[in-house]
């Protein structure tokens, strides 16, 4: 999903860069207001974990692989604002050190992988959690569903970017169909990894899962959720 330089023209890339800078400035302010110093190592851990798991490309179809994007996972663990920042750190390190994802395409990649996953994904997560239940099982299921949909959404957003400033003159309909098709498969992998990770953290330190915080305060109907793990 990392866009290299050259796929999307310079004006579109620059516009995405401006969106990314503006959004990350808001994220920095909001996460600075909402969080405490002790969350710093958690932010580091989320970024490091997303980096490591992004290296683990899994096969999805003939001759194709996919990997975790991690935006939704980061948002469920540390909240959407800090989560978007963590994934952006990963994308910047990948572009600068590992030559993965173009430098001029960095803004596009932050929009598609950090912002779409952390914000649109987290919105889907909150809706899904309401339907699936405000308990640990519901949080895991809602995380998985939102992870899948956030990857598909990222592929749709890429298609929009390609429609605005794509190079090479490929048919938009065919790009859309191919992108969405393969990212439904990659999204299943995203859902599995996200569900396993959120489930594991919920099992050992439920208090560290941002996406499970609200249900302790605001769900008198689910007292079990309030006491899990103590």
């Amino acid at each position, binding site marked *: *999903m990392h*866009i290299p*330089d*050259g*796929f999307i023209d310079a004006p579109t890339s620059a516009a995405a860069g401006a969106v990314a800078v503006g959004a990350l400035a808001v994220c*920095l302010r909001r*996460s*600075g*207001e909402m*969080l405490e*110093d002790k969350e*710093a*190592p958690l*932010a*580091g*851990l*989320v*970024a*490091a*974990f*997303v*980096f*490591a798991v992004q*290296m*683990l*490309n*899994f*096969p*999805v179809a003939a*001759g*194709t*692989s*996919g*990997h975790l994007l991690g935006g939704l996972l980061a948002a469920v663990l540390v909240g959407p604002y*800090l989560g978007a*920042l*963590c994934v952006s*750190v*990963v994308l910047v*390190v990948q*572009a*600068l*050190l*590992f*030559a993965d994802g*173009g*430098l001029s395409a960095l803004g596009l990649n932050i929009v598609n992988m950090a912002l779409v996953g952390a914000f649109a994904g987290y919105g889907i997560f909150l809706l899904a959690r309401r339907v699936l239940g405000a308990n640990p099982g519901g949080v895991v299921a809602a995380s998985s569903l939102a992870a899948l949909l956030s990857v598909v959404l990222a592929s749709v957003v*890429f298609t929009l970017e390609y429609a605005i400033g794509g190079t*090479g003159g*490929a*048919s938009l309909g*065919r790009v859309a169909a*191919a*992108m969405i098709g*393969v*990212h439904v498969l*990659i999204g299943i992998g995203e859902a599995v990894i996200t569900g396993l990770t959120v489930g594991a953290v919920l099992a*050992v*330190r439920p208090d*560290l899962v941002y996406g499970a915080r609200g249900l302790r305060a605001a769900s008198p109907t689910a007292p079990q959720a309030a006491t899990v793990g103590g």
Partner: protein
Amino acid sequence: MARRRLAVFVAAGLLVALALAFFVSPEASSKPDGLNKVAIDQGFADKETAHRTADSPLAGYGVRGVGSDRLSTGLAGVIGVGATFGIAGGGFLLARRARRRTAAGGVER
């Protein structure tokens, strides 16, 4: 106490990330990812231009000069885990301190 438990959790999590990066990432699929495959199939893959950091000693998730592919990929993963942990964790602390200084010099909150 709570702080120490958090440190244990973060240390355990980091160990998991390091193990995945070092031991598992060399086993990862090297096939093109979804976007690259679409670019190949739909005929715009050749629009990719040379990466501006292609000369980085870590370009392409390997450490230049390390002969074994396994070790090269694994070490690159470990370096990446360390870099992202330090930048995200340290950057967050710096941002908080800058914010406190601004708040202290400004209006009482």
